[in-house]
C-alpha cells in the first residue's frame, strides 16, 4: 500500500449532525468554510479564523476541535456535530442550551454556539467538577461581552443535574 495520489481537490464523505454528506473539497478549505459556505450550517462562527477565539468549535467524532484550523480534507469518514445538532426532534432545547438562557450566559450571542459545544465537551470529559475547572477548560472560548460568570454557572448547573 502507498500514500494517496497527490491532489488539489479531494472527494469525501462524512456526516454532519447525523446527515450523510458527500462533497468535493479544495485542499485549502477549512471545515468551518465547508460548513458555513457550502452546507449552510452557520451555527459555528468565524471569529478569528486562527484558532484563538473558539467561536467555530464543533465536535469531530465526539471531541471538540476548532473547525477553522481543521482542513476539510481531514474529516473524511468522520462525524461532525454542530450546535444545530443538539435540539430534540420537536425542537426541544438541549439542557445546556436551556441553561445558557436561564443563567444569562450570553449577551450578543456570537460566541454562544462555540461556548455550548465546548461546554458539552467539558461536561463529557469530566472537566466540569468545580468553577475553577470549568474556567480552565473553557478558556479556549472567548466572550467579548464578558458573560463568563453566566457561562460558568450554566455549565455547572448542567454538571450538577448530571451528578458530575
Amino acid at each position, binding site marked *: 500500500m*502507498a*500514500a494517496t495520489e*497527490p*491532489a488539489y481537490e479531494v472527494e469525501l464523505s462524512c456526516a454532519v449532525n447525523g446527515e450523510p454528506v458527500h462533497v468535493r473539497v479544495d485542499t485549502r478549505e477549512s471545515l468551518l468554510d465547508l460548513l458555513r459556505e457550502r452546507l449552510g450550517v452557520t451555527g459555528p462562527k468565524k471569529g478569528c479564523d*486562527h484558532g484563538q477565539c473558539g467561536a467555530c468549535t464543533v465536535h469531530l467524532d465526539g*471531541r471538540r476541535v*476548532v473547525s477553522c484550523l481543521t482542513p476539510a*480534507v*481531514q474529516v473524511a469518514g468522520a462525524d461532525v456535530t454542530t450546535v444545530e445538532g443538539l435540539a430534540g426532534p420537536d425542537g426541544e432545547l438541549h439542557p445546556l442550551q436551556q441553561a445558557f438562557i436561564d443563567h444569562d450566559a450570553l449577551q450578543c450571542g456570537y460566541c454562544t454556539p462555540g461556548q455550548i459545544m465546548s461546554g458539552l465537551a467539558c461536561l463529557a470529559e469530566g472537566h466540569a467538577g468545580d468553577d475553577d475547572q470549568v474556567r480552565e*477548560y473553557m478558556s479556549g472560548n472567548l466572550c467579548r461581552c464578558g458573560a463568563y460568570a453566566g457561562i460558568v454557572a450554566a455549565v455547572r448547573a448542567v454538571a450538577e443535574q448530571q451528578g458530575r
Partner: protein
Amino acid sequence: MRPFAYTTAATAAEAVDALAAAGPQARLLAGGTTLYDLMKLEIETPPAVVDVHRVADLAGFDTSGERELVFGAGARMADVAEDGRLRRDYPALTESLWRAASQQLRNMATLGGNLLQRTRCPYFRGGEPFACNKRSPGSGCAAQEGLDRSHALFGGSESCIAVYPGDWATALVAFDAEVDVLGPGGARSLPLARLHREPGETPQLEHTLEPGELITRIRVPVTPAGRGSAYLKIRDRESYAFALVSAAVALTLDGDGRVGDCRIAVGGVATRPWRVPAAEQALRGQPVTEASARAAGEAAFAGARPGRHNAFKIELGTRTVADAVHLAAGRAAG
C-alpha cells in the same frame, strides 16, 4: 492560501516515501494547529503537504515501562495529559500539556508536531512589511529595534531573538528525553536537547532533522525525580496564553531533606528549550529553603541578555523558578 497538493499516508514508512516524492519544499501535516494557521497567513507556502494525522503506528503511547516512557509522535496532547501514571509520577509533563493552548487545540495537536511548533514572534507572523530573517533570510530583524516584550533573554543573535514557544519540549528537556526519527536513510535517535537550533546567522533553520525525516517517537527515561516535579507557567492571563516565563523543575530529596537529583529548564525566555545547569548546580546538595530556591532562580537568569521591554522577565523568571522549586520539593516530600 496558496494551492498545495495533498496526499495522506497510513503508515510512517508511507509518509517518509510520500515526503520524498513530494520534494524538498513539502511539509508534514499532523494536527495542523501551527502549519495550517501559518499557511492561512501565507507565512508557510508549501507546494505539497503529506497528511500524517491518521498514521496509526504513530498514535499510541505507553507510560507503563520500567525503563522509559514512550510517546508516539502522533498522540494527541489532550489524551496524554489525562494519563494516570503521568499525572501521578510526572506531574511536570502533564502540566506542560494541559497548561498549553486550549482543550480544542490539545484535541488536535500532536506531541511530535508540538515539538516543532513555530515561534509566535509577531514580526514573523505579521508577514510583510516587517523585516524577519527567519521568514525572509537577510531581511533583518524588526524585533531588535521594535516591541521586544515577548522576545528572548537567552540564545538570541543579531539575526533573531524569537522565542521558542513550546511548553512540552521545555519540560521534556529537563527529563533528558530522546527523539526517534525515520527518514530516507532509515531510523535514528537524538537527544531532544539537540533537536532545536539556536538562530545564529541562520534563524530560518530551526531544527536538526534531515530533509525528509519524520519524528516517530519521544522517549523519556524513567526517573524518581518525576514524582517531585512541577511545570509552572506564568502568563498575561490565567489560562490559554503563551508563557511569559515558565519553569520545569524535577528533583529528589535525600533522607535529611537535601536535594539529590535536580533538573531545571525555563521556557518563554529562550530561542530553544533551555536547560539551566547553573541553577541545578546551585540547588544540588542544599535543603530547599526560601534562600536556596531564590539562589537557583538567580543562577538560572544570571546570563540573561534583555532587550528594551523584557527586562522584567529576569525578576519574574527568578521567582518562577523559585516557586517551581518549592512546588516540586513539596511533591517530592509526598
